[in-house]
C-alpha cells in the first residue's frame, strides 16, 4: 500500500512549532481558495481542500476581545487578536498595563519564550503598535 505524498512529512501542528522555533510566526494559506487559517489543520476549513501550505504571517492585527485575569500573583491580559489576514487567535498583549488593552487596539506580533510556560516552547504575543513603530 502506498501512502498519499500530499501528507508526507511532519503534520501541520509540528510544522507550525518548527517554524516558531525558527523565529517565524506562520499561518496557513489555502493554495486552492486563498483562505487564511489558524490554528493549522490538514484541511482548508473554508473550501475543504487538503493540506494548505504555510506562509509567514504579517503579525499585524487588532484586539477583537480582551480580558484581564486577576490572579493572586498579579493581573495578566488574555486577548483574542484578529490578524490582518483574517484568522483570530488567543494571545496576550504585552508592553502595556493589562487593563489598558482595549478592543480595536492595533498590535504587532512578537515571539516570546519564558519560564511561565511549562513546555518552554516559543509562543506568539502582541505589542501595541506605536506611532513610531
Amino acid at each position: 500500500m502506498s501512502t498519499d505524498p500530499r501528507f508526507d512529512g511532519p503534520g501541520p501542528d509540528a510544522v507550525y512549532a518548527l517554524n516558531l522555533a525558527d523565529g517565524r510566526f506562520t499561518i496557513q494559506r489555502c493554495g486552492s481558495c486563498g483562505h487564511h487559517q489558524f490554528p493549522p489543520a490538514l484541511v482548508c476549513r473554508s473550501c475543504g481542500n487538503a493540506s494548505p501550505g504555510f506562509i509567514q504571517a504579517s503579525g499585524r492585527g487588532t484586539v477583537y476581545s480582551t480580558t484581564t485575569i486577576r490572579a493572586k500573583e498579579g493581573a495578566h491580559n488574555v486577548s483574542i487578536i484578529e490578524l490582518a489576514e483574517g484568522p483570530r487567535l488567543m494571545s496576550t498583549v504585552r508592553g502595556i498595563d493589562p487593563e489598558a488593552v482595549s478592543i480595536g487596539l492595533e498590535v504587532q506580533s512578537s515571539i516570546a519564550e519564558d519560564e511561565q510556560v511549562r513546555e518552554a516552547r516559543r509562543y506568539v504575543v502582541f505589542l501595541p503598535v506605536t506611532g513610531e513603530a
Partner: protein
Amino acid sequence: MRAKGNDRAVIVGAGNTKRWDAPGRSAFDQLQEAVILALEDCGLQLRDVDGLFCALSSSGLPTLNVAERLGIRPRHADGTMVGGASFLFQLQSAVAALEAHLCDVALICYGSNQRSAGGKLVSMPDPQPYEQPYRPLYPLSSYALAAARHMFEYGTTREQLAHVAVAARQWAMLNPAAMMREPLTVEEVLASRMISDPLTKMDCCLVTDGGAALVLTRADRARDLKQPPINVLGTGVAISHRQIAAMPDLTTTAAVQSSAAAYRMAGLGPKDIGHVMVYDAFTITTILFLEDLGFCPKGEAGAFVESGAIAPGGSLPVNTNGGGLSCNHPGMYGLFTLLESVEQLRGTAGERQVKNLDVSLAHANGGVLSSQATAILGSPSTL
C-alpha cells in the same frame, strides 16, 4: 419526520438527587440515586431500560461504567460528550432511537461530586496547546471574552449582567431545593471579586455536586405509567468550535441554529414558549441565549433583563429553579434544564409554578459556547 400516536417518544420519569454538597458520595453514587428516583417516578424497572445515554466529567467511558453499576445490558447506547449540552444532544438521539425502535426505554443520566471532591469545576482532559501559553482561566476567561465583545458591540453593561444573577436568585428563593436562597442585589454582584473582566465571582455559576436522570419511552407504553407523559415537541443541536478564538462571532452562538431546528420540528416559534430554561454558566450566557433563541433582537437582551422581564412576575419566566447561578451546577448542568421544564409542565413546581403552561423550552450549552442544544417540551395536553 417525527413519529405520531403510539410511536411518539415521550418523557415519563425524572430524578433529581438535590444533593448539592454531599461528601462521601461519588459521581456514580449521585447518578445511581437519580436513576432510581427517575424509575420510581414513572414506575418502570431497571430491567426495562434498554437504551443508555450518559456523560460524566469524571469518566471517559461513562456508558460502560454506568451499565455495569446498574446491572443493565443496553441494546442501544450513546455517550456523546460535548460538555454541558451533552444530555440535550442525547435527548435528540434518544427520541430518534425510541421512534426507530432501536430501544424501548431510554435512560439519560448524570452524576457529579465536583464540589465535595475538590470544589473546582471538573473538566475532561482536553489540552489546548494554542491557548495554554496565555494562561486563560478555563472556561471562565472564554466567557469573559464573549461578554467583553458583547458589551463593546451592543453597549451591554455590567449592571445588566448583574440583573441576570439577581433574577436567578429571586427564582431560587421560591425553590426549596435551590442551594442559594439569600436575597441578592445588583450592588452585591457588582462589588463581588473581579475574576476575569468583566465577570465577577457572582457572574459565575455555583460549583456543586448533583445527580439527574430522565426516562423516556413511547406513548403507548407511557399510558400505564405513573406520571402524565411530557411531549418532546422539538429538538435541535449545533456545534460551532472548540476554542473560543475559533468561535465565528463572539456575540452570536450556534443556539441560532439549534433553536431554528427545534422550532421547525415543533412547528412553533418563540412567541409560543411560556417558560424558558437556559444554561446560565455565567450571566452573559443568559443574555446571549435570550437573543439567539429569538426572545430578543440581537443586542437587546441586556435591557430586557434589566426591565425585570425574566424575574418572578416578569413577562418571560426564565430559569425558574434558580439556574446554574443559584440552584446548582455540578459541572455539566444541561440535564437540570430539562428536569425543571418537566416539573413546570407537570404543574408540580410549587411556589415558582408558571400558570397555564403548555410549552417550555430548555436550552443547554457546552464547552465554551461551543455546543448548543435546544429542546421544546409540551404538557400532556399537547400529545
